[in-house]
């Protein structure tokens, strides 16, 4: 009896069954960027350690980061950081109890997407101009 009650309990459908909504896509992207950033810390560790080890090791890291693949990684990393940062601030507002209405949540979602894109572009334009291409 008890067994049957637990077996027949209505379950929430899986992620694959839900139709992706704008807000749910933003939510899973927050997680995905978080995991990606955690992996990206390896880059930070490598960079700091190489700098501490000396000029040669540092030059190797810099050369890797300046290759097309290095730049692609850094570009992705910078976007992920800005996205996670902006959406994280959105989460902090929710934690404080603000912005739960659907219209507000969708608007703040758009603000996050735009802010992440804008900050990524600004960072790269400034960075590339500063070092002269």
């Amino acid at each position: 009896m008890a067994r049957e009650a637990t077996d027949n309990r209505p379950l929430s459908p899986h992620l694959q069954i839900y139709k992706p909504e704008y807000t749910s896509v933003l939510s899973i992207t927050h997680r995905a960027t978080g995991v990606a950033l955690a992996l990206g810390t390896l880059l930070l560790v490598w960079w700091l350690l190489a700098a501490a080890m000396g000029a040669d090791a540092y030059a190797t890291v810099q050369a890797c980061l300046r290759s097309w693949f290095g730049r692609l990684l850094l570009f992705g990393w910078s976007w992920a950081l800005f996205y996670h940062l902006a959406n994280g601030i959105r989460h902090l507002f929710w934690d404080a109890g603000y912005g739960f209405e659907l219209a507000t949540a969708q608007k703040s979602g758009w603000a996050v997407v735009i802010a992440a894109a804008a900050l990524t572009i600004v960072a790269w334009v400034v960075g590339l101009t500063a070092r002269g291409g």
Partner: protein
Amino acid sequence: MSLRSPLARVRGLGSAKEGVQHWWMQRLTAVALVPLSLWFVAAIVCHAGAGHAQMRAWIAAPTVAIPMLLLIVATFHHAQLGLQVVIEDYVHHEGVKVASLIAVKFLAVVLAAISVFAVLKLAFGG
């Protein structure tokens, strides 16, 4: 019906025995990382073309080394807490789950230690 008083329940801090500690630390490190990560990206962008000597001199300054150390501690703490939730949500095999949680925690501490060592060596290494 529970015969435990609300105070006893609060002192027990729930089934995980840590109450809102995880949730709160995740938020606290998040708030700390807002200025720290913005500072870090801005600094990296401004030093995009710097060589080793320049980079060393830059990081050795207390105004850089100290925020860098704070950034390292907050980043690895925040990353560990976040990965823990992801593992708890998606890894269903109990053994794999516990092993992953231990691995992530150890790795976060080791990587933070390496990074802190690197910054201190750059700052004091002479």
